[in-house]
């Protein structure tokens, strides 16, 4: 690049932050996570379909295999991801609807709510897994 005669003046001009050194605001994280969980849940619909089809096949119709797979480490990881995704998308979806009504745009409030939503969704997913793990699920016998 050619020598710029106005180098000093340019250097003091405010520059737009470069992506790689830009501090990610937590609200940006919540926004992209809403999209990611929405896409994950869309794929997760396949698990729901699989579960319902296995049930509809009746006794000894693949339901036991589904349950065995669900209880395997990989199955539990996927189900935990799906549970957290739904919890996150639920809480943040609630906030989206509040935004649509014009509430919650204050910067500090939006940042605080973002942290709350991450924490609340993680706690919900852990609580649901704890309920099932400690044998308090399956109450619809």
């Amino acid at each position, binding site marked *: 690049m050619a020598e710029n005669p106005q180098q000093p003046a340019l250097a003091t001009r405010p520059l737009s932050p470069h992506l790689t050194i830009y501090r990610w605001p937590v609200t940006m994280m919540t926004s992209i996570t809403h*999209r990611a969980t*929405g*896409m994950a*849940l*869309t794929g997760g*619909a*396949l698990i*729901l*379909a699989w579960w*319902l*089809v296995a*049930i*509809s096949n*009746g*006794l*000894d*119709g693949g*339901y*036991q295999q589904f*349950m065995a797979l669900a*209880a395997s480490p990989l199955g539990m990881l996927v189900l935990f991801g799906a549970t957290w995704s*739904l919890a996150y998308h*639920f809480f943040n*979806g*609630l906030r*989206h*609807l509040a935004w*649509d009504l014009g509430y919650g745009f204050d910067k500090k409030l939006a940042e605080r709510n973002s942290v709350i939503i991450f924490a609340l969704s993680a706690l919900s997913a852990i609580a*649901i897994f704890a*309920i*099932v793990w400690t*044998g308090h*699920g*399956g*109450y*619809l*016998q």
Partner: protein
Amino acid sequence: MKSAQTPLHRVKGLGASHSGTGHFWRERITAVALMPLSLWFAYAAIGLAGTSTSAPLQFFAHPMNAILMAAFVIISLYHAALGVQVVIDDYIHSTGMKIFLFLLVRLFVIATGSACLIALLRISVF
């Protein structure tokens, strides 16, 4: 300057996007409906976790439970198709690819939804 728009185009007022706020509005309506439905879904899924086949068979044999599950499936997949369309709109800029992916998403939700609904019918009706 005289506009190149036809009178019909001007009256519709939709411009280059070909559609108005309908998509946005349907995404919100389905989101509102999904809030109670997903709470019910969590109740049902936790309640059926780890049971043997007869528990979910009996649960979905009850018409109310089958209807609620069908509503959750239909409204989720409708909401998902609307949502994924926005994601495609944001990242894919060639019209041909866009239309191809829109069709693929519709195929996905119709196939997945049909599988769920036929399964529910088999359990609760037949």
